[in-house]
């Protein structure tokens, strides 16, 4: 059971993430009105928001340190926030600015913050093998660092996920695979693409631990993650931790969700893990003023990040030719166009 202090931290991360994405959404849609044009407005590219996923990241990352590695998929913001990624520079990156985490080269699906060992990839399940590699490095170096790979329930049908499970299991590596089950992979409901309703069951094919948290509840996630991360840190091997979450929006901004029944959207909105945690906090004697203060602090931080990002300069076009290599060859190919 998390302490009240921890519960407050978890809550703050969750409301930060929720608020952050609401603001990103607003900024993103600005300039895309009345007709949605993906190339218009202040934020470039696709945008996958994670409203409804926050409990998973916040509950898991509460057990992680900066030295631990996290890899995230295409829907990474809530995870980045819980892992402690620099919010200003992350936002600058999402706005495509020169002072962004990747100097504007990466974008929202390719956020890297080596200070807290966070990375993401836009290819389904392909963050799993690098997480296994980070765990391998930790083990070789005899540290007690762990690695956590986040992925969606749609990603557990991808070969790279299974290969990672097997490799982690046979080498007894300190890694946790956190599956965020929001019931949907874009337009495909889970039952259309797999017979297994509990993704943690995939563990059984690898003689490893698997557990599912069936409620969208940060406290339950925290507790399951305590065990899974603890197991990894203690040298007792990998775990699949599946967490029920809810997709409160379309797959990406601009997705009209024509395929999704209204009741499903409503149900997702009803089961709000942020509200649930607020109720828990109240039960622990945290009053509404304090909750408001937390939310205000979160909002302020979010505004600051967005302000920061908008003030940053865009990269110069010629910067496109830099950073392909850490040791650029003298007479490098490329560059000219």
């Amino acid at each position: 059971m998390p302490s009240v202090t921890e519960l407050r931290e978890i809550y703050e991360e969750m409301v930060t993430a929720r608020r952050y994405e609401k603001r990103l959404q607003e900024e993103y849609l600005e300039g895309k009105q009345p007709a949605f044009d993906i190339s218009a407005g202040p934020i470039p590219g696709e945008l996958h928001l994670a409203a409804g996923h926050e409990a998973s990241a916040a509950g898991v990352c509460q057990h992680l340190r900066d030295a631990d590695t996290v890899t995230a998929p295409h829907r990474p913001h809530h995870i980045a926030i819980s892992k402690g990624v620099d919010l200003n520079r992350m936002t600058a990156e999402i706005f495509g600015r020169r002072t962004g985490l990747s100097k504007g080269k990466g974008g929202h699906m390719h956020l890297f913050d080596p200070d807290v060992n966070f990375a993401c990839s836009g290819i389904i399940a392909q963050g799993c093998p690098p997480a296994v590699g980070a765990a391998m490095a930790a083990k070789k170096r005899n540290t007690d660092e762990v690695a956590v790979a986040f992925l969606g329930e749609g990603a557990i049908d991808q070969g790279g996920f299974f290969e990672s499970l097997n490799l982690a299991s046979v080498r007894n590596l300190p890694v946790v695979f956190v599956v965020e089950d929001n019931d949907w992979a874009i337009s495909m409901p889970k039952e259309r693409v797999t017979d297994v309703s509990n993704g943690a069951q995939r563990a059984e094919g690898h003689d490893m631990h698997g557990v599912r948290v069936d409620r969208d509840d940060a406290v339950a996630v925290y507790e399951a993650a305590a065990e899974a991360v603890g197991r990894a840190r203690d040298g007792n091997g990998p775990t699949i931790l599946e967490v029920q979450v809810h997709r409160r929006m379309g797959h990406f901004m601009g997705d009209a969700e024509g395929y999704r029944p209204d009741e499903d959207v409503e149900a997702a909105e009803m089961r709000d893990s942020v509200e649930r945690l607020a109720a828990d906090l109240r039960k622990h004697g945290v009053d509404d003023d304090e909750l408001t203060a937390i939310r205000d602090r979160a909002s302020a931080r979010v505004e600051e990040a967005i302000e920061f990002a908008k003030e940053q300069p865009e990269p110069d076009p010629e910067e496109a030719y830099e950073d392909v290599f850490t040791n650029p060859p003298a007479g490098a190919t490329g560059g000219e166009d």
Partner: protein
Amino acid sequence: MSETPGEPVATERELTMSRAMVEAISSEMAADEEVFVMGEDVADYGGIFDSTQGLLEEFGRDRVMDVPISETGFIGAGVGAAQAGMRPIVELMFADFFGVAMDQIYNNMAKNTYMSGRSVSVPMVLTTAVGGTYNDAAQHSQTLYGTFAHLPGMKVVVPSNAYDAKGLMHNAIRDDDPVVFMFHKRLMGLGWMPAPEGPKTPVPEDDYTIPFGEADVKREGTDATVVTLGLHVHRAMEAADELVDEGIDTEVIDLRTLVPLDAETVLESVRKTGRLVVVDEDYRSYGVTGEIVARAAEDALADLEAVERVAMPDVPIPYARPLEEEVNPGVEDIAAAVRATR
């Protein structure tokens, strides 16, 4: 242009490239029970880029199949079904994802015909979305034309407009060989990603085929030859228009298929103009531009007075707008290259 008996009836009906492509698929599915569609989000969603829009309603879930995010699994299943005599159309959502399934694509789909001494065929169409211009960054913006065209055994098709997309798709489905059908997102005419002028064309309602290996001279000219494909056909045409004012008369060639390659049309043009500019949205080195230049150097060296390549430089595709604009060849880049040949 047409192989079907009789010329297609003239039409004023204009279609987007996605509608034209779907019309061909739909017509072939109606004609042949063995044709089916499989991919991620191809059913209810109709394809993220509208490449299968409306097919579920027309043909039902058995013939328009959503599948797990398992590209090796379902592309390989396409190969197996094709070898069993069916004619699957399988979608790889973005060409950028090829790396999770490339073994099925090039070690089975592309090679089984040859490795079996042609005792089996693989009549399969692999459709895939390509290209940038909307800031989707390094893992979702590539064309990878060169990567697919380099490996033998696949026919590689890159339509630049609705008319061609329909005719090439008919041909692709009827062809007994594996065809990689690479459609550019920016050309599809999506509501949320406006297409430039050009790809939306009149499209006959009847079936018609465009044979593979016939490049299309989009504009005749005497001063320079621009060879390109996909989105950049439109950019080259715009550049050519601009150059008219400067007294430069540019010929623009749309390759339409990379395998087979219509080198003859390119050579003819180069022999006439002496100046070759190759424009490609794929990476510069070891790709399409090198191949086209080499063909000209091999077979028309004496006529060749100048050569320019305009391509994505050898960098992963950056995210921020000024960066992506810098690397993705623009109208001005093309015009400048043509000028540089003088």
